């Protein structure tokens, strides 16, 4: 046996324990979900029968709620992703220079990220109460009667989006901050000597340099927004009506509240396909748009 072959065998042996775990706890369940999606299964009775693609037919042609859910998921992502990225980038730019007090503000914006998501959502639920909530009490100082935030359809969606943006903003801010700080200073110097103003410096120096980071943040944030669950579960339970029922909450609802495990698995397959497609699309876009990737 050659040395190279021997090396590769011992390499495989080293990764074996982790890989076995991956097979059993990650790949196995994923495959199982695909199998379940072709079955009618009940969590309550434990019965299962093979029904082919009927779950998918039902989803696209019979289940009106599925379409509502998809629309809500898109609205959520469409609201969250641009807001999160714009704010994170703006904060990163503002806090990248060594002014006094940047450390303090960086900490403030990052603090929600390390806060327990559950505690965060529950506290916000209190703040957004109709009469006694702090938000509405604050508004009433200016003679504004705030809505019952989590109980009225449009406001509920806005509330969960804003809530989620505030919670995760800090993480993207830190990633952007690292990218912005790493842009070599001599480029700015050169640009300034050429007479570029602040907007031009951002447009022609900063932005191209942080393009790979931007694409990565976009992928993470978008995929994360498709997978939102905890905020919805804790703040609105998908309500009022189905105004904030997003895809993952609907999967939970079908699988664990009304016990249709087969149908929930089929929904999970759709989520998997959507997230997978998004990731692939952005991967290829990233190659085309990033000039500085190493």
């Amino acid at each position, binding site marked *: *046996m050659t040395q190279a072959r*021997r090396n590769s*065998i011992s390499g495989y*042996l080293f990764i*074996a*324990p982790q890989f*076995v775990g991956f097979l*059993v706890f990650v790949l196995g369940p994923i495959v199982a979900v695909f199998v379940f999606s072709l079955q009618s299964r*009940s*969590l*309550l*009775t*434990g019965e299962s029968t093979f029904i082919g693609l009927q779950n998918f037919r039902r989803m696209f042609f019979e289940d009106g709620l599925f379409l509502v859910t998809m629309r809500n998921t898109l609205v959520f992502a469409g609201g969250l992703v641009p807001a999160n990225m714009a704010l994170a980038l703006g904060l990163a730019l503002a806090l990248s220079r060594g002014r006094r007090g940047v450390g303090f503000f960086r900490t403030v914006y990052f603090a929600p990220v390390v806060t327990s998501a559950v505690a965060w959502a529950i506290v916000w639920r*209190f703040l957004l*109460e*109709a*009469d*006694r909530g702090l938000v509405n009490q604050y508004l009433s100082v200016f003679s504004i009667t705030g809505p*019952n935030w*989590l*109980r*009225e359809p449009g406001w509920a969606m806005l509330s969960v989006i804003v809530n989620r943006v505030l919670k995760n903003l800090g993480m993207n801010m830190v990633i952007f901050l690292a990218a912005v700080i790493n842009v070599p200073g001599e480029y700015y110097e050169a640009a300034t000597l050429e007479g570029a103003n602040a907007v031009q410096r951002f447009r022609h120096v900063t932005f191209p340099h942080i393009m790979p980071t931007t694409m990565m943040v976009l992928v993470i944030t978008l995929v994360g927004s498709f997978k939102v669950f905890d905020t919805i579960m804790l703040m609105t*339970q998908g*309500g*009022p*009506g*189905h105004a904030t029922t997003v895809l993952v909450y609907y999967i939970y*609802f079908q699988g*664990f*509240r*009304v*016990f249709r495990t087969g149908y929930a698995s089929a929904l999970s397959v759709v989520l998997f396909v959507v997230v997978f497609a998004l990731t692939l699309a952005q991967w290829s876009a990233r190659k085309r748009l990033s000039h500085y990737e190493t």
Partner: protein
Amino acid sequence: MVGRVLWIVGVLACVVAVGLFGAGAQEVEDPDAPVDLRFTVWTGADSHLQLLNSIAEDYSQENPNVSVEFATIPFADYVTNVTVQLAGADKPDAGWLVETNAPEFIQAGVARDVRSEAERYDMDDWFEPALELWRDGDRLYGLPFSTSPFLILYNVDLFEEAGVPTPRELSARGEWTWERFAEVSQAIREETGVYGFQTMDGQGFDIRVWHTLIPIMRSYGTDVWDEDNNVTLNTPEAVQAVQLFHDMVFQDESVVPPGDRSDFYVGDAAMTVGQISRVPQLEEADFEWSMAVMPEGPAGRGDVIGQAGVVAYSAGEHGDIAADFVGFMTNKENVARLAEFFPPARKSVLESEEFLAANPDIPAELMREVVADSIQVGRVLTPHVNFSEIDLESRGAFDELWRRDADVQAALDRVAEVIEPLLRQ
């Protein structure tokens, strides 16, 4: 070398296989082997758990190899969590089951037949209608441990402050109607600034929406659906009943509104719907409280009983022992002990003087007037074999009802539309 590699891979595979499947291997059952029963409940109240544990200890005295552990799951997540646990590896053995989900669980085969175990403890003593829900032909899938009428708990201090007669005074005069209920609620709101009424556990607009609607609808002569599974929650009587409550919430603003956490038990509301199991929550209340029967409507009193049973899960590992414990837990002696918080469905206990004195915080006359008498005439919450789905699918439509500008008839029509196909399934 290759041989050695294969050998190592083989060993690794064996280790994984044993780890994965070894746990599932069945051992031959030794009658004296120690058994730990896990029993699911939705109460977390210390006083309840102490009582349950003392029953479990007595059982362990008789059966030294058995110990029972009570696992608390919050009411809102109870059915989901029990179902998931039963589908998983660490299955509970027995537990409480709420009446609304009983038909569904029984039909799905989740609960096991406990007739032979129950027959050891004087079956004729049970109040016959109370067993109806748990029976299917000759089989008995559970035994009620709590047959608990809904009642009005109220804050006497707030009534005094507002200068309005208390529910019990009104009831004694024969004036305790839903209209009067709405009036006193509004008067309290105006005089004291405190809400007049809070729905049951503050959950009456979502997970306990049925608990809000059924009592008032029944006293207006209807119900949410009838015995033949026809929707009746949008009939004229039902709409009239719900309109009254809707006006209380959104016009009078005398009811703790949806999403608000003002709580009766700490003095933020003057009345609430409760059961005697809620009395321990008043232990530290800094106000004087009392209780009364539910108000009357045009069709008289619509007494509602919240029933809960104990069942042995058929998926559990120690089925026979769990069933035996279910029988033991609902024998005469233990039902009498449970009666402190959970009104009994055994005639001998219900008719005893001890029951009237079972809870030291509740005077005997109240226990008779508000609890014992209501058990005789009340009916359990309206059950259905498809309840989980009806409950969850209708919640979206109910959210439309709980809006200030809602058209009650239209909103209830919408709910009816959603639940009708589910009732017929």
